[in-house]
């Protein structure tokens, strides 16, 4: 069952001037999250900012949960201010995560920028060999590399649009190439909104076996406000309940 509780901050690891890893103590009776699921987080007693912010689970273990967070506006700025020992309000796990690959499928994980967060967990959950494509505009958008390089059984390919690291190009270029080589792929994608828009245009990707995690502004995260509506072929879906992971063919 979904939980709503206060979690103590175990540590905050600064990864760059815009990125940090927030590790929370999560009581043992909390449900195990699936890769792609998310938590809503809020801190402090001020009503400004008012709403909780959604973050994918980056990693977890029996007594902690980690979130990889990019500073964007006031909510994430405020989270960056928390320190060890403080408590934050969390609700989760929420939404539907990525389905694990079926036997015989070749997992291909495609992450852009901060979109790597849920894919890191997914990569760790998948215990067979996988291909991981990770990209950003330039090398400073490639975050948590130390963590990503440590995932076992992974063929990691790095892309940057400006060529400052890895292959020059986008992960979607990379994906196309991979798909020409791989027999029965199952693709998992998480990246910025713009990347998802591009994806929808790629007709050759419209197979059943492409899963995309999408983002939409959320108020409640639990299905009651209808704020996170996302248009799909079957009408409006709630990203927080029916998503955030959708089959690309549904979008």
């Amino acid at each position: 069952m979904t939980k709503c509780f206060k979690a103590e901050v175990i540590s905050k690891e600064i990864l760059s001037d815009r990125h940090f890893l927030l590790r929370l103590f999560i009581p043992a009776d909390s449900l195990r999250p699936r890769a792609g699921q998310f938590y809503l987080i809020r801190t402090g007693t001020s009503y400004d900012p008012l709403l909780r912010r959604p973050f994918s689970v980056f990693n977890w273990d029996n007594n902690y949960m980690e979130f990889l967070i990019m500073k964007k506006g006031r909510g994430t700025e405020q989270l960056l201010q928390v320190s060890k020992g403080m408590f934050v309000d969390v609700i989760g796990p929420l939404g539907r995560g990525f389905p694990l690959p079926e036997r015989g499928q070749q997992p291909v994980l495609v992450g852009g920028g901060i979109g790597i967060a849920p894919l890191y967990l997914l990569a760790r959950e998948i215990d067979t060999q996988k291909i991981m494509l990770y990209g950003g505009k330039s090398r400073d958008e490639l975050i948590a590399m130390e963590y990503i390089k440590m995932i076992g059984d992974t063929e990691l390919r790095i892309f940057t649009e400006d060529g400052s690291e890895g292959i020059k190009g986008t992960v979607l270029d990379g994906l196309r190439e991979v798909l020409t080589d791989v027999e029965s792929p199952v693709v998992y994608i998480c990246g910025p909104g713009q990347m998802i828009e591009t994806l929808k245009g790629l007709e050759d990707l419209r197979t059943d076996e492409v899963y995309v995690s999408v983002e939409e502004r959320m108020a409640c995260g639990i299905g009651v406000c209808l704020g996170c509506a996302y248009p799909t072929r079957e009408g409006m879906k709630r990203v927080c309940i029916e998503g955030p992971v959708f089959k690309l063919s549904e979008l």
Partner: protein
Amino acid sequence: MNLSVKIGTIVMKNPVMTASGTFGYGPEMAEFIDLNALGAIVVKGISVRPKQGNPPPRIWETPCGMLNSIGLQNVGLKAFLRDKLPFLRKYNIPVIVNILGGSTEEYCNLAEALDGQVHGIEMNLSCPNVKSGGIMFSSDRALFTEVIREVRKRVKRSTLIVKLSPQAPVRDFSIIAEAEGADALSLINTIPALAIDIETRRPRLAKGIGGLSGPAIKPVAVRMVWEAYRSVTVPIIGMGGIMTGEDAIEFILAGATAVAVGTANFIWPDATMRVLKGIRDYMQSHGIEDINSIVGGILWEG
């Protein structure tokens, strides 16, 4: 300690209800709280036919508040009665259905279909009248009067609640609503507002204007509840930025017999229970035996 209040013929075990559109149809929230502990549940606005609602983005955060333009997305009357109401009937709480329409006829159809099926019918009149080029029922005297009058004729068993918009003069519209037979008033609905993305120069919401809710509007809502309380004798359901028991007490002192918790449900899924506990604590520490004894209890003549 008596927390029970009466809204029309609805007896509520406590004054805490949900604000329409902020609590879904119940099941999602049942994961977080015991619905039986609520004074009443008010569901998302229902129209005759299902509505897809507006394209995203539908919400935007503002200082101490949020804008929404959900666009009246709902399952429609038929599906509500078939799929949603049975779930709510399992609970021992009054069910109030918020209704919305594009014409007086639609409101009447909804009222007829729901009368006697649910404890209360709340008319959300912040909808444009299709025939008169988009004028809101809630801000046009003639439309407002007519739609309440017609719906009143069709509601014989359920309690009829008229929800006021903050855009119309409260006194006048409260008095009209009461005169036309409303059993209770609820206020306030969200305040129309606009936020612009200065990068794209487009509104933050796909539909442009949205409704402002949350703590930011609380003092405006308290003032309006007080104005309504001074103008009519029917009970008032107060809402607008209620986050805590203290906030609820403020509304009750201003004249609300019951309070509805809206946006707060998004911050804390158990917001209604927090508010209820806060009311209880206040009563206890202030030696108040009956919540009804402090309704309109503000010490000020105006």
